[in-house]
C-alpha cells in the first residue's frame, strides 16, 4: 500500500471537506484562467480586426470613437464629413481604396450601415477572405432599396431573402421612430466572424436620403474606410500629419490596431482588478486547504499513530499530508477547467452578440499550464503546516483512544 493509497483513503474519508475545498480551488483556477485567456484573446482579436482597412477618416473627434463606430459598429458617429472630403481622400495617390459609410438608422436595434458595392467587391476583411453571400442571395443594387443582412442579424431577426422591413431612425431602437421606406432583403452574408455579421448593409444613398434625415446632409458620410497603397507606413504617417496635425476639421485614425490598443491600455485597470480578485480567491482557497487539513489533524492523530506503529516513517506521514493537500488542489484544478470552459463560453457568446468579434474559448493559452502548476504548488505549500503537525505526532501517546 503506497502513500498514494493512504492519500486516496484520506480524501474519501473527508469527502465533504475535500469537495468544498476543491470547489473553491476550481473557482479560483477557472476565474484566473478565464481572466487571462479572455484578456489576451480579446486584445489580440480587437487589435487585429480592421475589416481589411488601414485607417478611418471621420469628423474631428476621438480616434477611438471613430474606429469603434466605423469598424466595430459600436458607439455613435462623432459627426459627418462632406462628400468632397471623401473625394479628396479617394483621389489621394497614397490611397488604394476608400469606402464611405453612413450610419444613423437601425432595425430593431441592429444597425443599418450605408455603403457602396466596393465594400464587398474589393475588400478582404481578413487576408485572402472576401465577404460572400449565402446561397440564393445577391448584392444590393445601389440605386434600389435593397439590403444585405449580416449572418448574426439574419439569425436573430429571422430575416431571409425576399423579406421586407422598415428601418427605424437613430442607432437605438425606438418603435415610434419607424421610417416609411421599405427595404427588401436580397442577400444574407456568410458568417465572417467579424462585426460585419451584426449589421444590415444598405446602399449609401439609402441612409443619406432616408425620410426625416436632414436634406442638407444628403451627401454627407459618417466615415471613410481607407486602404493605403504599399509602404502604407510612410503614407499613413504623412496623412496622419496632414489631417491630425496640420488640419483641424477631420480625424485620421491610423493605424487601426494601435487605436484599439489604446482602448485596452485604458481599461487595463479592469483586468488588473479581475486578476486581483482571482488571486484573492486563490489565496482563500489555499488557506481553506490549510484549515481543512489542519482541523482534521486532531481526529487523525490516532490513525497517524497506528500507521507509525506499523512501521510508517515520519517522512512518509509528512509526504502523505503534503500529497493530500496537493491532490485537493489538483482535483480542484481539474474542475477548474470546467469552470473555465463555462465562463469563457459565456463570455465568448456575449462578446459575439455585442461586438461580432469571435474568440475561441478553447484556444491554448500558457495560463492553462502555469495556473494549475502554481495552484497545485500553493496547495502543497498549504499542506506543510498540517504535515509538520502530523510529523510531530507522538505515537505512544496517541495509540490508545482518548476518552
Amino acid at each position: 500500500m503506497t502513500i498514494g493509497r493512504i492519500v486516496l483513503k484520506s480524501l474519501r474519508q473527508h469527502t465533504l471537506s475535500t469537495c468544498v475545498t476543491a470547489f473553491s480551488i476550481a473557482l479560483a483556477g477557472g476565474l484566473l484562467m478565464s481572466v487571462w485567456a479572455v484578456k489576451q484573446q480579446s486584445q489580440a482579436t480587437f487589435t487585429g480586426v480592421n475589416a481589411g482597412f488601414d485607417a478611418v477618416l471621420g469628423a474631428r473627434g476621438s480616434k477611438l470613437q471613430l474606429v469603434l463606430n466605423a469598424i466595430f459598429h459600436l458607439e455613435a458617429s462623432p459627426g459627418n464629413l462632406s462628400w468632397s472630403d471623401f473625394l479628396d481622400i479617394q483621389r489621394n495617390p497614397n490611397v488604394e481604396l476608400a469606402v464611405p459609410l453612413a450610419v444613423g438608422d437601425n432595425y430593431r436595434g441592429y444597425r443599418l450601415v450605408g455603403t457602396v458595392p466596393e465594400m464587398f467587391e474589393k475588400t478582404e476583411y481578413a487576408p485572402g477572405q472576401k465577404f460572400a453571400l449565402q446561397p440564393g442571395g445577391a448584392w444590393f443594387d445601389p440605386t434600389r432599396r435593397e439590403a444585405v443582412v449580416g449572418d448574426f442579424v439574419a439569425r436573430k431577426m429571422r430575416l431571409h431573402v425576399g423579406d421586407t422591413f422598415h428601418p427605424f431612425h437613430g442607432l437605438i431602437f425606438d418603435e415610434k421612430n419607424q421610417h416609411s421606406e421599405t427595404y427588401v432583403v436580397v442577400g444574407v452574408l456568410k458568417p465572417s466572424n467579424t462585426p460585419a455579421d451584426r449589421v444590415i448593409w444598405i446602399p449609401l444613398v439609402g441612409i443619406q436620403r432616408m425620410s426625416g434625415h436632414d436634406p442638407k446632409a444628403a451627401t454627407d458620410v459618417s466615415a471613410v474606410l481607407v486602404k493605403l497603397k504599399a509602404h502604407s507606413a510612410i503614407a499613413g504617417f504623412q496623412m496622419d500629419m496632414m489631417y491630425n496635425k496640420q488640419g483641424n476639421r477631420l480625424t485620421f485614425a491610423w493605424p487601426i490596431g494601435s487605436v484599439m490598443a489604446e482602448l485596452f491600455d485604458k481599461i487595463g485597470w479592469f483586468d488588473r482588478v479581475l486578476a486581483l480578485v482571482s488571486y484573492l480567491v486563490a489565496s482563500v482557497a489555499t488557506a481553506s486547504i490549510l484549515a481543512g487539513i489542519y482541523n482534521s489533524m486532531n481526529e487523525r492523530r490516532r490513525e497517524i499513530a497506528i500507521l507509525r506503529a506499523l512501521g510508517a516513517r515520519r517522512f512518509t506521514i509528512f509526504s502523505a499530508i503534503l500529497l493530500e493537500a496537493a491532490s485537493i488542489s489538483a482535483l480542484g484544478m481539474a474542475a477548474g477547467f470546467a469552470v473555465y470552459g463555462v465562463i469563457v463560453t459565456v463570455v465568448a457568446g456575449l462578446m459575439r452578440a455585442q461586438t461580432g468579434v469571435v474568440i475561441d474559448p478553447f484556444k491554448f493559452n500558457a495560463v492553462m499550464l502555469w495556473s494549475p502548476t502554481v495552484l497545485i504548488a500553493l496547495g502543497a505549500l498549504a499542506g506543510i503546516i498540517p504535515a509538520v503537525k502530523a510529523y510531530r505526532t507522538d505515537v505512544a501517546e496517541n495509540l490508545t483512544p482518548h476518552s
Partner: protein
Amino acid sequence: MTLRTRPMPLLEISKLKKSFTADGANHCVVNVRTFRLAEQAQVALEGESGSGKTTFLHLIAGILRPDSGRIAIAGREMSALEEPARDHLRATTIGYIFQTFNLLQGYTCLENVLLGMSFGPGADRPFAVKLLERVGLGDRLKHYPRQLSTGQQQRVAVARAMANKPRLVLADEPTGNLDHKNARESLKLIREACRENGAALLLVSHDREVLAQFDNVEPFDRINHNSAEEPPV
C-alpha cells in the same frame, strides 16, 4: 574439549530505563536490568494496570526510545538505531497486537492487513487473503471494522500482526476488550498463529485466565524495578 555456547536469544534487554516527567517530577516507569526471550518462545508478563507494561512493549518496538540501556532484537540493537531504522526494524521484524485493536476504520479488513505489510516487506495480497482465511474471516475481506464484531476485529488485528512475517509478536492486553469466549478463542488463535509462523510471543496481561494458558509467566514487577532502589553493583 567441546565449547558449549548458549544460543543467541531473539530479544535481549539489559539495563533498560525509561522515565517520564510529570508535575515537575521524574517518574521512572521502566527499569529492567535484564530480560531475554528465545526464538519462538511464548512468554506472558503479568502485571497490574499502570505498572509500565505498555511502555516496556513500546520500548521493545522502538516506538519509544529508552533513556539508557540496550535492546537487541534478532542481533540488531534497536536502542542504538536512529528513528527511521527503528521504524524499518519494527516494520520487518515485529508484529503488534493492541488491546483496542487499532484497526484503521476507513480501511477494509484486507486493506488493514495489507497495510501491515506495506511498510515492511511490501504488499502481498494472496498472503493477506490467506491470513484472513486462517483467522476465519475469508468471507469478510471487504468489510470495514465497524461492520465486524469485537472478536472479529481482534482476529483482523492478529492477521495484520502476522502480515510482515514477524519474528517477534508483542501483544498488549489482547483480550482486554473481549468477552470470555472470544478472549479464549482469540488467545488460542494468537498462540497458534505465532507457532505456525515461527514467531516468538511476548504478551502482557493482568487477566489470570489468560495467564493460566501460558507455561511461562513472568511477573512484570520481578523484572521491572521501577520503584526499587538501584541494587548495589
